[in-house]
């Protein structure tokens, strides 16, 4: 099975703290990691390869330092890694990113399945997986927990608000993968060695034959008008008593005042 996994490098949210004075993120010196949901996509790809044989290709679009994330993918078993990077891609929204990534995936090979994490934890949009699938003219199933190959395509379990759905897809497909799917395996010593010497294939806008009007800022219908900190709660009330009964009484009093119960 020929498997593609699209990943994004994001700031490590475990290491991000909030400056309580300004209510802004302290991002300086924060290390970058593979987007957690993309780890689930990669692991699903590796499991499919374990089961059915084949090859896992990982593709990321980002700045040159995203190379680190790709090496990590090699350390756990990715066979080929591709970095899509170009100054021209700067300012891409999800539309332009979907277009650019779809060109890269198509250039990278003829894949049976293209996997994405459910969403990235920095932008939280969940829009790129479906976008890429449309540009590639393959069906997309979102929020996938399990996938298995069938004679004609795939059978997948999709998580919804209410439970699960079982879907059948013919032919090639794209899936976005949820956290419940799995936990990414740890790198082996051999994998770590391999990661160090792995070749990172690097493509820019010209390599992809990307149309200028569809990439970067120009290819992005949306623009960020302003960024601001969410309002801080300044009027918190604290209840502290020896007797829990008293605390609960006070709490209920305050809730009644506000007509919350």
């Amino acid at each position: 099975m020929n498997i593609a996994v699209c990943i994004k490098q994001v700031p490590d949210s475990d290491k991000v703290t909030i400056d309580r004075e300004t209510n802004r993120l302290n991002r300086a010196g924060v290390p970058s990691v593979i987007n957690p949901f993309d780890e689930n996509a990669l692991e699903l790809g590796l499991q499919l390869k374990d089961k059915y044989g084949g090859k896992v290709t990982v593709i990321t679009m980002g700045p040159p330092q995203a190379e680190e994330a790709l090496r990590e993918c090699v350390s756990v078993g990715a066979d080929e890694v591709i970095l899509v990077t170009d100054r021209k891609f700067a300012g891409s929204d999800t539309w332009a990113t979907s277009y650019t990534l779809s060109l890269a995936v198509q250039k990278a090979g003829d894949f049976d399945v293209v996997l994405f994490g459910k969403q990235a934890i920095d932008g939280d949009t969940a829009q790129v997986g479906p976008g890429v699938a449309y540009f590639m003219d393959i069906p997309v199933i979102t929020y996938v927990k399990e996938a298995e190959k069938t004679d004609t395509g795939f059978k997948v379990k999709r998580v919804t608000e209410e439970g699960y759905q079982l879907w059948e897809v013919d032919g090639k497909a794209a899936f976005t993968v949820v956290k419940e799917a799995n936990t990414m395996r740890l790198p082996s010593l051999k994998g770590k060695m391999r990661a160090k010497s792995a070749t990172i294939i690097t493509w820019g806008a010209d390599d992809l034959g990307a149309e200028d009007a569809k990439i970067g800022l120009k290819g992005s219908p949306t623009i960020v008008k302003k960024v601001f900190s969410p309002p801080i709660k300044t009027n918190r009330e604290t209840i502290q008593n020896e007797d829990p009964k008293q605390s609960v009484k006070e709490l209920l009093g305050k809730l009644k005042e506000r007509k919350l119960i």
Partner: protein
Amino acid sequence: MSNKEIWIFAEQREGVISLATLELLSEGQILAAKSGYTLCAVLLSADDSKILQELYNYGAKKVYSAVGPKLSYYQNDYYSKVVADLIIEKKPEIVLYGATSVGRSLAPTIAVMVNAGLTADCTELDFDTEQMLLLQTRPAFGGNIMATILCPNHRPQMSTVRPNVFKKNKLGDKEKGESVSVKVDLSKVKDRMRLLEETKEEVDAVDLCEAEFIVSGGRGVGSPEKFIVLQDLAKELGAAVGASRATVDAGWIAHFHQVGQTGKTVCPKVYIACGISGAIQHLAGMQSSDFIIAINKDPQANIFDVADIGVVGDLHDIVPELTSQIKALKK
């Protein structure tokens, strides 16, 4: 020229309109008043006879209704084709979708099909009457930063909007509206995916994303068995049960319940955080709740920074007491 219309994608499951749709229609009434645009709904279903009136009651003046056996449930290829064709034909100014498992999958496909901008998971909408643009505000980086997004040069302007943010506003029981029948031609769409079966889990549990009250537990709960204390309170309040990542990772409760960056993002009217320290990843999933009550032994816990009321104390004392006092109140 685009059509001066605001469209709400009317999401139905088994013939029932989602709460998110009704909330969006209600917010749509406000946007329609500000912009002077007409509020419309777009409905895809196998049978619209029981649904149309409800959409009128929440302010839709016009419902574009596509009816067909292939439209009974959300199937991305069919749904995106019908809505995209309609957008290209009618050219609405704005199209809004609930940020549900359906809306967040369908809208991104439509956005690339019709070459429109799409802003994900908005928590605030407004209309700039000078520039005649939709102002779409959303949390980013797990809610620690807010961003206002514009779509100046492409139409329609599209957003998915988080459920539970806007209040429902039903105008009446017999509101008038017009239904416009949409021709459905899916003959050119490849039949390449289908729903085989659907399993509804925890049927008696309240859905976290649509719950008005959530009782949520963290490491302070102490053990899997102790979640019953929270479940009892939840039962009294008609609340959903949430959990922090720590408790899910420890195997105390199913991931289904997890609130936070790698779990669900919720915004109930009241969120009761019990024994949750308030890691940034957890705050990301719940800090846009209307009202937050934190119960924690540690007065320095981060969770108190986002709380409206902080109760310093042991949840094992406070929560059962709260349950019994609420029970007493009901009598």
